[in-house]
Structures are given as C-alpha cells and as structure tokens.
C-alpha cells in the first residue's frame, strides 16, 4: 500500500460557498478531542501499570469496584492512541510522518476491535479463552467466577464499534459512517450512565456477585459497564465526533450559520433536560416525600417550562437573525435600485447625444423610452460640416446595464474607427466612408461581442447635402422609413448587412439614395414595431408607415410625440417589453440665402447687462428688416429671456456668461441666447393671471407674445439655448416660407 487514500483527499475548510465554520468552535472541538484522546491513553496506561505493579486503586480506576477488567483498559488505551494519531493536524505534517501515524492508528484500532470481538465471542459461545487474565493473573477467589474480570458486553461492543470507526477514519479522512458509529457508542455509553444514575441495572448489565446471583434469579449474569468506563466510552465517542468538526453531522454544529446556532443551543438542552427531569422523577419516586403522581406532574410541568424556554430563546435568535437578513436584503435592493437610477441618469445625460437644433436644412427629433429604465438602444449625431451629418442609431441585444455599457462601447468604437480612418487617409479633408467605419469598428468589437453572446444592430446614415444624398449602412437594423414629399409615399431603406458582432471579417456595403427638401427620414428600433397590444398583436411597420405618411407635414418633434402616443395607445400602457427609440429628420429647403449679417455678444449674468443686450439687438435688427415696433417687441423678448436666464438658470449669480448671437435675414431676425445654467421647461410655468393678483412670472408669456417663434433646446455644444425669431411679415402672410428657420 504505497499510496494512502487519506493522503489524496484534502477536504476544504469552508463548508460551502456561503457558510463557513466558526473558527473558535473548531478550535475548541479539536482541543477537546485531543484532550479526550490523551485522557483515554493516560487512564488505559494507568490501569495497565496499576495491574502490573498491583496497585489496587490504579487497577480499578475504570471499574471503580473490586473487579478489574484489564482488557477494557487496554482497549480504551488503544482507542485513545488511535484517536490521538488521527487528529487533524493540518497540512504542515510531512507525508512520511503522516503515513506512520496512520499505520499506528490502524493497528491500535484493530487491536481495540479485536479485544472487543474476542470478549463478545466468549459471551456468545460461553468460552473462557483466558484473555481476561492475560495481564493480571489474579485468582479472584473471593469472587469465584472468572466472568467478573471479563469486561461487560456493552463495553466490548463499544470497543468493537469504536475500533471500526477509527479504522474507517484512518482509511477515509472524513466519512459520515465514522460519526454514525461514534454516535452509536455514545448512545450505549449514555444509556449505561442513565442506568447508573437511575439505578436501572438492566441498562448497564447486572452485577452478580457471589451468592447474590441466585437472588437476581433468571437475569443474565453479565458484568456491569462500570460508570467510569461508561463515561470514558462516552467521552471517546464525543472525541471522535469532535476530531472532524468540518464534516458530516458536525458540519452543522461547527458552522456559523443559523442552523449551527440552534443546534449548539438545543442539542445540549435535548440531552440535559430529559436526563435531569427523568432523574428528578425517579428520585421523587424513591422518596416518600411527595405522592408519585404529583411528582411526575410537577416534573412534567417544569420540563415544559425549561424546554419551552430554550425553544423560545432559540426562536428569538432566529427571529432576530431573520429580521436582520430581511433588512439587509431590502438595503441591497435599494442599493441596486439606486445604481439603476444613477445608470439611467448617466445614460440620459452623458450617453445619449442631443439632436442638432441649429442646422438650416433639417429639423431633428429624438425619442427614447427604455423598457428597464436603462437600455441598450443608442443614437449619436456626428456633425462634420454644416452640410454633412452622420446619424447613428443602434440596438444592443439585451437590456439593462450590460446592454447600455455595450451600447456605449459600440459608440466609442465607431468614433474610434472614424478618427482612425481619418488619420490614415490620404486626404485629411475627406470623410471616411460609412461602410469603412462600420467594417473597421466591427473588426474591433466582433470577437468580444461573440464572447459576450451579444450583437448590435446599427443603422449608420450620412446626410450629404452638397449632393442631396443619403448614404447608409444597414446592419441588421430595422428598415428606415423614407417619406418622399414629391410622390407623397414612403419607402423602406433596407440593406443586407449582418449585425455587428457576428463575424469579425465581415465587409459591409453601403447604399445611396436621393433626398429632397420636404423629405422625412424616420430611424427607429424594433421596440417600436414590436410593441404588442393586449391580444399579442404587433404594432408593425405598416402602422408606423401609415402614421408617418399621415403626419409627414408635421414638425419632427410633434411627429415623435404622435408616434409615442400611438404606440402607447396601441399597447395600452407606457411600459414596453423592449426599448423604444426613434429619430426623425425632416429636410428643408437648404438652398435658401444665408443671413445678411451676423454678430455675437457675450455678457456677464448681471442684471445690469440687460440694457447692453437690448441695445445690441436693437442695433443689429433696426436697419431696415424689421419695423420699429417689431424691433421693440424683439428687444422685449430678448430682455425677458436674458433676465430669466440670470434669475432662474444662474440663480442670480452675476459671474456667469450669456452668449448672444443675432442673425439678420432678408425676411426675419433670429436671436439666440446660450447659457450653461440650469435648463428650464417653459411648459412648467403656469399661465399668468391678469386680475392684478400676480406681480411676477409674466416673462415666458411676454416672450411668447412678443416674437413669432420661440424654441428652448440644448445646442450641439451642450449649451442651453433660447432661440427667438421675429419675422418681417405677419405670420399669416408667409405661408410660402415652409416653416421656421431657427
């Protein structure tokens, strides 16, 4: 036997992933086990020495009577040695030492079991093999029977079982069978102790000395398991259990789990209370002090209180632990909720781009409703020149924070691919082709996406106003709707490219179509078309096309609102199964003449500067284009807007900046006020009352009344902007101008 199985098995100390053993309890259990093994060796050794030197009190250490059972002493000693050798000493013992320890343990275990076995066979076959006198050759004449020196059958059986258990333990480091055997011994020993305690002789054997044998008539004449022997056996059983505190039945007791806590509290009570009350009951019966029935009733009554108390105590601990656990769970849920909330805000404020508002040739609007509040849809606007803009709309497979992170990563890689292509291109002024950007970005991220089992559908569209062209790469995305004003029909723009993240070597192709002023392009995620109503029907592309066709003349902002209302109305709620994103672009006449003149002015956010702003606007606007009273109205609106910015957006801090620009066209004047203060929503301001009860809050109303168009938005540099337009003609006289031009 060169390789020992025990050497190969190395059990982890952690009971499982979440519950670990309590190190203090483990230390105590191991120490107790070691102490018991040493005690057993000492007692066994002392009895043997006592026998050899004929020291009576030593000889009878285990029996406590005149009878001496040297074999039992040897058996107990051997068991102690085996247990000592089998103590779990950790990993610092070397292999050779460990092997020899195991051999010694095995020999001792076999020895103890043999002694027990031989004794039992002597009882069964009524033999006297003389083993009982091998050590102490005493005539024992006074007793007259050899049986009295033979160990009791209970002791013998216990030795056999203990030997077997130790043998098993030396073969397999930790096995439940060892502990079951140890428990069996413990039970035998416990019964014997109970017998002694209650005076029930049958439980430990019958002491039959000399002539008394006849008196006890037909009871078997066995030697008794003496109390010290029973105690020693019980301790050994306990030592055996305690030597492997991480395994089997002891796993629960030594663990720091709630189960361990309860077990450590209730198990001792389960042993002590019945024993104690049973003894009380027997003692009361023995005395004539109380009536037997009354005594039993009283004992039962106290028993109920004691057991109930222990159970309540344990339940109280469980209750407290449970309350604590639920609190922790709730806190964790709150933390998670907060993280989602923060993620959502980050996505809203930093990951979603604002659609451009300052382009003369198109109006943009974007809408996004995440299903799980934070989502995997994304869009981006790359403004290369006044007349070249890329719109990117993507949808990551999946939802929640991982999808949002992938969306952000995809955006980053698209931009990286873009700048990389510019850097390596021959002509720094030429924009990289959309197909090359997508192909390069895909080659960067495809393998990572495959590993993450996700993919991204993208529509990359470039508006090239110099050529009136839309160049697009469709990567498995929903088909963009192109409303053509000339024919009044919708066309679906579809390519045949794969989504990003399926094949790193994919070469993407791009398509080109003609676009005209008045055309409308609607980019959307499948959350729109795959919204379902209560019967499970899909919203579908047809409904979307109908909607676009019906409302093609509307401002994109308004169209987007209608679209949202339509999808919500269809699905019957504002909560969708998938993220819902839509970007619409309405093209306008882009060959209109530019401004006649343009000027910019920066003022500090001091109310004293209001006059400066008014003078600047008056100076710019009053040269011919607008009538005098229209210039006054425009000035009034500018003054109100600037003072709102100072008072509300900048909270009256005078050290900030407001940037104004004025563009004077042949037929109108446009004033924009940019600021970096808090954005404010004019819709939140309630309509003013004109009954004299209100002294302030008229600003928004005055602005709206004083100019023809007002728009609040975030510009492409991230500044909050208020744009004001005053036309030279009355609004109803300029139908032909096709909308505003902010």
């Amino acid at each position: 036997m060169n390789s020992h199985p025990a050497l190969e098995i190395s059990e982890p100390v952690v009971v499982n992933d979440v519950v670990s053993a309590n190190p203090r309890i483990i230390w105590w259990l191991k120490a107790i086990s070691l102490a018991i093994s040493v005690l057993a060796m000492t007692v066994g050794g002392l009895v043997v020495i006592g026998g050899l030197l004929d020291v009576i009190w030593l000889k009878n250490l285990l029996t406590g009577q005149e009878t001496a059972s040297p074999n039992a002493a040897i058996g107990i000693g051997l068991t102690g040695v085996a247990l000592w050798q089998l103590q779990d000493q950790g990993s610092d013992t070397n292999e050779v030492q460990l092997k020899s320890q195991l051999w010694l343990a095995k020999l001792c275990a076999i020895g103890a079991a043999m002694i027990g076995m031989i004794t039992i066979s002597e009882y069964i076959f009524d033999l006297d093999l003389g083993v009982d006198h091998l050590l102490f050759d005493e005539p024992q004449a006074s007793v007259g029977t050899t049986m009295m020196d033979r160990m009791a059958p209970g002791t013998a059986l216990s030795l056999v079982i203990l030997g077997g258990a130790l043998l098993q333990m030396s073969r397999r480091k930790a096995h439940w069978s060892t502990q079951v055997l140890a428990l069996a011994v413990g039970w035998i020993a416990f019964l014997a102790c109970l017998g002694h305690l209650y005076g029930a002789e049958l439980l430990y054997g019958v002491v039959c000395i000399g002539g008394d044998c006849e008196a006890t008539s037909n009871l078997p004449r066995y030697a008794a398991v003496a109390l010290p022997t029973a105690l020693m056996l019980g301790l050994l059983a306990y030592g055996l259990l305690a030597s492997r505190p991480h395994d089997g039945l002891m796993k629960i007791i030594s663990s720091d789990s709630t189960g361990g806590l309860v077990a450590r509290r209730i198990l001792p009570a389960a042993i002590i209370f019945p024993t104690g009350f049973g003894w009380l009951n027997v003692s009361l019966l023995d005395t004539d002090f109380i009536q037997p029935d009354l005594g039993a009733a009283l004992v039962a009554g106290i028993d109920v209180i004691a057991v109930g108390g222990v159970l309540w105590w344990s339940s109280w601990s469980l209750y407290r632990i449970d309350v604590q656990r639920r609190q922790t769970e709730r806190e964790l849920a709150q933390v998670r909720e907060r993280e989602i909330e923060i993620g959502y805000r980050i996505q809203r404020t930093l990951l979603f781009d604002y659609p451009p508002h300052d382009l003369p040739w198109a109006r943009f609007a974007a809408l996004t409703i995440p299903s799980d509040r934070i989502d995997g849809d994304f869009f981006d606007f790359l403004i290369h020149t006044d007349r070249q803009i890329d719109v990117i709309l993507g949808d990551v497979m999946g939802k929640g924070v991982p999808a949002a992170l992938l969306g952000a990563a995809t955006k980053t890689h698209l931009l990286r691919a873009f700048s990389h292509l510019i850097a390596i291109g021959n002509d720094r002024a030429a924009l990289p082709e959309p197909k090359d950007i997508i192909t390069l970005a895909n080659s960067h991220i495809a393998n990572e996406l495959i590993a993450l089992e996700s993919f991204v559908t993208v529509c990359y569209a470039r508006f090239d106003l110099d050529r009136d062209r839309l160049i697009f790469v469709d990567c498995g995305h929903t088909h963009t709707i192109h409303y053509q004003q000339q024919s009044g029909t919708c066309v679906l723009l579809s390519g045949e490219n794969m989504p990003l993240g399926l094949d790193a070597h994919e070469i993407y192709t791009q398509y080109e179509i003609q676009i005209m002023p008045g055309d409308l392009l609607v980019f959307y995620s499948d959350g729109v078309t795959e919204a379902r109503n209560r019967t499970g029907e899909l919203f579908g592309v047809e409904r979307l096309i109908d909607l676009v066709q019906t409302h093609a003349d509307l401002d994109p902002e308004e169209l987007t609102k209608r679209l949202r209302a339509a999808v919500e109305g269809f699905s019957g709620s504002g909560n969708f199964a998938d993220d819902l994103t839509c970007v619409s672009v309405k093209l306008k006449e882009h060959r209109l003449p530019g401004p006649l003149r343009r000027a910019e002015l920066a003022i500090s956010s001091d109310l004293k500067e209001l006059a400066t702003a008014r003078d600047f606007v008056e100076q710019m606007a009053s040269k011919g284009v607008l009538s005098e009273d229209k210039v006054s109205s425009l000035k009034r609106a500018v003054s109100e807007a600037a003072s709102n910015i100072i008072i509300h957006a900048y909270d009256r801090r005078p050290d900030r900046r407001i940037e104004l620009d004025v563009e004077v066209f042949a037929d109108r004047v446009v004033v924009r006020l940019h600021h970096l203060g808090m954005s404010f929503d004019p819709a939140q301001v309630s309509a003013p009352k004109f009954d004299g009860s209100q002294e302030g809050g008229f600003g928004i109303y005055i602005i709206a009344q004083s100019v023809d168009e007002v728009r609040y938005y975030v510009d492409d540099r991230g500044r909050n902007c208020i744009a004001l337009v005053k036309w030279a003609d009355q609004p109803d006289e300029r139908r032909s101008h096709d909308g505003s031009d902010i």
Partner: protein
Amino acid sequence: MEVTSELVGNVHIVTLNGELDASNVNYFKEMVLPLLTSPIKLLIDLSGIRFIDSSGMGAMISCQRHAAAVGGRLKLCGLSPVVRAAFELLRLQAILDINNTREEALQSFA
C-alpha cells in the same frame, strides 16, 4: 434710471426717466413703496421711460395693491407707444388707472 418725486397740491408725483427692468426695479420700489404707507394720491409719470420689462410692470401692480390696501389712489401717465404695447400684453389698462398726460391725471384726481 432716474426717480424724482415732487408734491403738487396734495398729489405726490413720481417721475421716471430711462429704462425700468429687473436691474433697477428694486430701487424703484424702495423709492415709491414707502410713500404708499399712508392714503395719499400718487401719480407715476412714465413719459421718460423708454423701456419697461415684466418686473417693472409687476412693480406697477405692486404699487396699485399697496395703494388700495391703505386707501390711497394711484394714477399713471405719459406712456410711450412701446410702454403702452407692453402694458397691453399684460392687460394692465384694466387694473391700473392710466391717463394720457400729467395734466389730465391731476385734473382727474381733483
């Protein structure tokens, strides 16, 4: 903006010159509102005002309310077309006693 006040007979006349906006409306209120702690006759002459914003008009409403609270009387006069246009936006002609000229106003006080 300049604020001057004089007493003609039993009528207090406050004359404003310049532009009345959020930057100086508090100054105007500090000058005028203390007068309206007793039941006086007050005339605000706006003929020198080239521009008034919403806070300026709010101050006029405030004066009217103070005057009404102490049993005084408030009249305004001399509105330029620009100021009148602004007043009409907030329908102030309905709640304020507006006269064309100072003389007209003084006569109507009598």
